[in-house]
């Protein structure tokens, strides 16, 4: 039996097909989840994809957080359901208080799309087990509001508990505090990051295939 990974489509989600393709290439079965449907259809893990849910109106992720499907996902995440939030999905996770902090407008005020180098700081989460700790990877980054912020004590706690999962290398592309590109919750099942691993799963279309281990990690974790 293949592992079922749900990919949520909110109105305005854009990278949902891409996340599904990545799951498939990693050997899993992508399952489309609809924002208005509370039922998770027996999936084993969930991806909140990139995009502009609800047009990013009000605040990025602020409206998506209240959609029916999120109610079930939030409850599931607290019980250990692996959840990956990519870009807009990361914003939704922060708005849902599954992850601390917030994403703000890039410090240079422009949308930026670039191939971004990252260091994997924590290879023990549900979504990073197939990386070596300290591995350096390159995946696309594309956002207008990707500046990670939190108060100093939260940042200190994240660092102390090893919950900073990815850090920007070479260039901090959006003014994120302490070069933070992605974080996890204390249990390690919920991970959010601004860069897009689902765009780095094929040599033909991505800068690298460094994104693939995100998806193989969770599949391995679930069959283990």
């Amino acid at each position: 039996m293949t592992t079922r990974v749900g990919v949520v489509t909110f109105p305005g989600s854009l990278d949902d097909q891409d996340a599904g393709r990545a799951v498939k290439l990693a050997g899993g079965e992508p399952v489309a989840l609809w924002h208005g449907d509370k039922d998770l259809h027996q999936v084993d893990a969930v991806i909140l994809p990139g995009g502009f849910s609800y047009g990013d109106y009000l605040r990025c992720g602020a409206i998506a957080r209240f959609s029916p499907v999120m109610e079930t996902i939030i409850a599931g995440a607290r019980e250990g359901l692996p959840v990956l939030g990519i870009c807009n999905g990361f914003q939704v996770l922060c708005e849902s208080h599954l992850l601390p902090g917030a994403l703000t407008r890039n410090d240079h005020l422009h949308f930026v799309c670039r191939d971004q180098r990252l260091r994997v700081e924590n290879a023990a989460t549900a979504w990073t087990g197939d990386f070596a700790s300290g591995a350096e990877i390159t995946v696309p980054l594309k956002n207008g509001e990707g500046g990670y912020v939190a108060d100093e004590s939260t940042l200190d706690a994240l660092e102390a508990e090893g919950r900073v999962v990815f850090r920007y290398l070479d260039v901090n592309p959006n003014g994120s505090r302490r070069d933070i590109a992605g974080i996890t919750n204390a249990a390690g099942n919920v991970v959010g990051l601004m860069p897009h691993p689902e765009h780095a799963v094929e040599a033909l279309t991505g800068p690298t295939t460094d994104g693939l281990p995100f998806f193989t990690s969770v599949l391995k974790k679930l069959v283990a």
Partner: protein
Amino acid sequence: MSAQSKPVLDTVKHATDTPEAAQPWAELGLKEDEYLRIREILGRRPTGAELAMYSVMWSEHCSYKSSKVHLRQFGEKAPASDALLVGIGENAGVVDVGQGYAVTFKVESHNHPSYVEPYQGAATGVGGIVRDILAMGARPIGVMDPLRFGAADHPDTRRVLPGVVAGIGGYGNCLGLPNIGGEVVFDPCYQGNPLVNALCVGVMRHEDIHLAKAAGAGNKVILYGARTGGDGIGGVSVLASETFDSTGPAKRPAVQVGDPFQEKLLIECTLEIFAERLVAGIQDLGGAGLSCATSELASAGSGGMRVELDTVPLRDSSLSPEEILMSESQERMCAVVEPEKVDRFLEICAKWDVIATVIGEVTEGDRLEIYWHGEQVVDVPPRTVAHEGPVYERPYARPDWQDALQTDDPARLPRPVDGAELREQVLRLVGSPNQADVSWVTDQYDRYVLGNTVLSQPEDSGMLRIDEETNLGVALATDGNGRYAKLDPYAGAQLALVEAYRNVAAGGSRPLAVTDCLNFGSPEDPGVMWQFAEATRGLADACLELGLPVTGGNVSLYNQTGETAIHPTPVVGVLGVIDDVTRRTPMAFRTEGQLLYLLGETADEFGGSAWTDVVHGHLGGLPPRVDLERERLLAEILISASRDGMIDAAHDLSDGGLIQAVVESCLRGGHGARLVVPEGLTPFTFLLSESTARAVVALPRGEEVRFTDMCAARGLPAARIGVVDGSDIEVQGQFTLSLGELREAHERPLRALFG
């Protein structure tokens, strides 16, 4: 025109009863003879609503009244092509790319709105072309933006460019469409008239092609998408069809405001509706809004149409019937649906939170009738609005300055006297705004979304995979060179075509079809009209010879400030197909030791070149010679070499000549090159001439014999000019430039100006 100032509803009956009432036809952009013709068609004066419809539909932008007589050539000279499924006249042309797939693509201008309000003007330009593609039944899969601005260092360029780029990114990124290429060009001639052209490409199965027509009496007319507001009223007639006059009133209200989130919902909702085969005809609402959609749908169908205008959902309840008909509010579509399918149609719209309203139906008759709270305000033959507008044979004449311009031969300009001076000029060239790296612009666009982007800016063409199983793909390139076209508009249009053609072939794709955006000054100037006539003739002739049908496009006139027109700027987009995208050829020199070959012949051709512009501020002489037969041969060689895996990199040679291409390929791949000047050429001509039908390729040593044998057998000159090597570009006996120095020169200018 507001409801307040017109307390009496101007019904058809009222118009018949008050034949002498004064009407604001001149303010709406109509000429007196056009107004009189409307009266003649109707046998009475038009109502206010009818006048509104005719004024927008008979505008230059919608009716092509000045350009039509010239555009006919694209049909008359069309090459026999099996690939063309839908030709000019629909929302966009459709081309067969094999395996049951059809591709639709089109380029359009949003020049005038983008000058008035750069962000919204550019954003809604993207939105409009995407809806055109959607209306054909296709899923939009990519966009490109050829852009032209005034001088890079002019203060107003700092207002216009960042706004335009943010608008394109803000809208396109939010739709989830990869932006895969385009152009960024600076020239003082565009100072008051920036050119913001937008191209969209979409894909569908053959059986999914939809057309804009309202057939079948009793079928319902459904307006869906955004509510109608007061934005963009008269955009096409006022903004796009007259020159800017600095003393006139502010034109800001004529620019529409976009909502990309609404458009994303509209795309997904429409594709779901298509998948269930729920529409008989469909049309997007763009320029001229409901006036255009209702009259075009009715005109293309077999019957008439009756519309209850007061059922249109409004953002502003005070809008008058005239304003509703003229509004260019964005993100709206109009569909014709059989009565039994209406419920399902509305259900899908509700799923996507898209407002949908039955506003009328197709009738037995042959009239377009529009009612406002039960009273008839429009009763017209729809063809007279949509398809039988005025046609002008504008006078045209070769400008009297043309001869002097062409005889001002760049041969008189001083050339570099030694390697040191040549080095200095090369460095200046690759760091000049037109030759510099444009990633400050393109980094603001999402090129990855949808996961099918195989090649994107700065590659010669943008390439998209359309089938993940078979690896079938399409490629697109857009090009234009206003300097060449100013020197010779006939050749200039052909040069735009062959550059895009060559760019598509350089990546390994076979060119299939053409779209064009013809940007010119005022058609009321005989000199401009001559440029237009020459450019269209040149483009049609070359398309015929290369076997490429023109599938559609757009004409933008009145791009001038006062008496000064822009350079004639035909922008040409070429679509190509590639059977296996994994065989594509990128531009980067990636492997040390590979051999560099220059394909084609280099002559001493500098008219309109980047060198004359950057080093001497000169524009004169004749542009490079066009050789269509040679272009075709070069393309065949590039495609064969790509398919058979003989070459690892290819880059088209265009403005800036060989050295520009080599610098770009070296910087992209992170490797240097050693170049040797071939016998018979001066270093200056070798490096900087802009002769056409040329490309530079990198090949593994093991492929040299096979490749050169192929070129020799088919008669394409191929000269070994060097090798990929080290971290410098060395031109033997002339100069050396380090990649670091070149990168700094090439990548800094746009960031310094706009960052």
